[in-house]
């Protein structure tokens, strides 16, 4: 019960003999806290249990839908999307396709990034192309020509240099960039 009992813990080299030090002395918790979304020094302490994906990092492969409530006023909105005084209903691809054309760019980008692998992603892709946006395969972002400037096509005709407007999904805003665009990189 005295200090000698602590020796195996203190002497790191032969820790394997007596105790599993990761459970006794423990570990540096900062990576664990970070994986939980806990930042001890930040003033604002965000609750993490409401979006807790799993007890283990390895099984926390995707975000999980947290508890939320959709007020009625968000659901049955009449007189929008040319639905007349009925709230719009989304129950057939043909009708829905027409409605998609009524959405503003940001809404299309939202549907494209939020619902991967769905009909919505495909339809928004088609609609954005119609609006002269092009999807960059490697950058995985949408871009369109800056109307103010005509790009200069390269000699070999495989690319052009000019000023483009990108939609940045991380910052959720459009930003202008000078850029060399290779035609085979977009779709």
């Amino acid at each position, binding site marked *: 019960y005295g200090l000698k009992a602590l020796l195996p813990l203190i002497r790191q080299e032969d820790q394997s003999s007596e105790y599993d030090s990761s459970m006794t002395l423990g570990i540096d918790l900062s990576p664990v806290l970070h994986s939980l979304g806990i930042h001890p020094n930040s003033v604002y302490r965000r609750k993490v249990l409401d979006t807790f*994906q*799993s007890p*283990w990092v390895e*099984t*926390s*492969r*995707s*975000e*999980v*839908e947290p508890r939320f409530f959709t007020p009625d006023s968000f659901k049955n909105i009449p007189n929008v999307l040319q639905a007349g005084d009925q709230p719009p209903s*989304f*129950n*057939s*691809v043909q009708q*829905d396709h027409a409605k998609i054309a009524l959405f503003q760019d940001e809404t299309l980008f939202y549907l*494209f*990034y*939020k*619902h*991967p*692998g*769905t*009909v*919505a*992603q*495909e*339809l928004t*892709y088609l609609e954005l192309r119609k609006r002269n946006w092009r*999807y960059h*395969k*490697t950058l*995985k972002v949408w871009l369109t020509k800056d109307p103010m400037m005509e790009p200069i096509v390269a000699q070999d005709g495989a690319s052009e240099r000019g000023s483009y407007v990108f939609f940045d999904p991380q910052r959720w805003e459009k930003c202008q960039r000078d850029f060399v665009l290779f035609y085979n990189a977009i*779709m």
Partner: protein
Amino acid sequence: DMPVSMASQLESSLLNCPDSLDADTPHLFQTPLSLPHPTSIFFPNET
């Protein structure tokens, strides 16, 4: 000591450990727009 049968059951539980996809909210009814669709491999496949 942990009985052998218990240890192997614990092992199989570890192998089948549920992940966050198993814990996600169920969505039985899919509107046509949210139905799965083979989109381009270049598109982002995680929200």
